[in-house]
């Protein structure tokens, strides 16, 4: 199947699944490890993909995806293109709070080849928050992993009273202009 949908499967008990999409596999791996290292009281599964769509033959094995994080490397135009191409394979309802953009390489703004404006626009067009970080530094990687986990918990419906939709709204209200 070509499109991932947020609500076509039932949630598994006390677990959450995040899908990381990005062209830099080693960085992805590092981030995934950082997420796994965090202490948490629910089961987490992390799916890594360099691009979308996901192969449909494995679909039955896949849990419900609660959050998709698109990783963009500020130093690589390709990473942005890749993400833009992948976005077409995401069901529209995902953008109701279950997608975020992770911009890495911010430590090297001076060397960036991707325009910040383009990224900012991406976040606006797709109504999704943009997180800035530098995944190559361990401290920031850990901090970013924690932030992703918080969002994941909300997206998976683990926080009573806070749905992905309302959280997305919150983030968007504070991203106006």
């Amino acid at each position: 199947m070509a499109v991932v949908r947020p609500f076509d499967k039932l949630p598994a008990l006390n677990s959450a699944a995040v899908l990381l999409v990005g062209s830099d596999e080693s960085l992805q791996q590092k981030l995934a490890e950082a997420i796994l290292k965090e202490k948490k009281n629910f089961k987490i599964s992390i799916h890594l993909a360099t691009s979308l769509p996901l192969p449909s033959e494995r679909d039955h094995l896949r849990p419900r995806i609660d959050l998709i994080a698109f990783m963009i490397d500020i130093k690589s135009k390709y990473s942005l293109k890749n993400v833009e191409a992948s976005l077409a394979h995401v069901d529209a309802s995902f953008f109701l709070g279950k997608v975020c953009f992770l911009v890495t390489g911010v430590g090297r703004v001076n060397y960036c080849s991707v325009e910040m404006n383009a990224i900012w626009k991406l976040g606006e067009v797709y109504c999704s928050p943009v997180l800035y970080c530098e995944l190559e530094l361990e401290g920031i990687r850990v901090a970013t992993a924690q932030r992703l986990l918080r969002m994941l918990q909300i997206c998976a419906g683990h926080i009573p009273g806070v749905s992905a939709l309302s959280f997305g709204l919150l983030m968007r209200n504070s991203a106006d202009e």
Partner: protein
Amino acid sequence: MEPPQREPGAAAAGDAEAGPAAKLDVLTLLRLREQMKQQLMECSATVHASEESYPDHIIEEKLIKTTTEDLEREMEEVKVSFQNKTLVLQRIQLMDALRNKVKQNDDDSRLILETMKHIIMLSTAILESQQQAREMEEKLNDIKKKRLLLKQAGGNKLLQIHTTMKKQKKELASMEVGEMLEKIRNNLQKEKEMTTLIQNIFQNIIIGSRVNWAEDPSLKAIVLQLEKNVSFL
């Protein structure tokens, strides 16, 4: 594209506490119940939303925007209201259960009592520290204000000094100096300006002559003097 072995199995195995085999105490069960409620709510909201029929006519975007904003505000209010009321009900039940438990006078109740005592002890300590912090903050704030006042006073003083100096200078200038002295001063001033100009011209001559002045020590010495202010030469 999706390397599944990189993810779920290994990851989940590490989380012993979260696995289904983990000890399911009441708290966890309660937490899970809240989780499932939330998930159910979200799922049903989605179903509900997809059943909604869309109006045929095109609504103006502006209208949608303002309506959305109104609804958002309303929803936020309802949410807070709901949470407050839920909190009341939960706390009522919780405290009632706790009181009943304490009255049973068994090991558990004694433990609760001990914990309560401990909490009160800590609270008293916090209250004390809080009071101290409050007082210190007040002092700090007073100091900040004083500094700002001093800053202002200092600024005014310096302004005074400068105006006094200007005044003195003026007075000095307007003082009945001998014509002679005045002339001398003017001459001196003129000479100074001339020298500065000559210095500059000399610099330009050197540059224009394309000479490697650094190679000649005495020329270099002169070059390095050419920015000096005349009054002190």
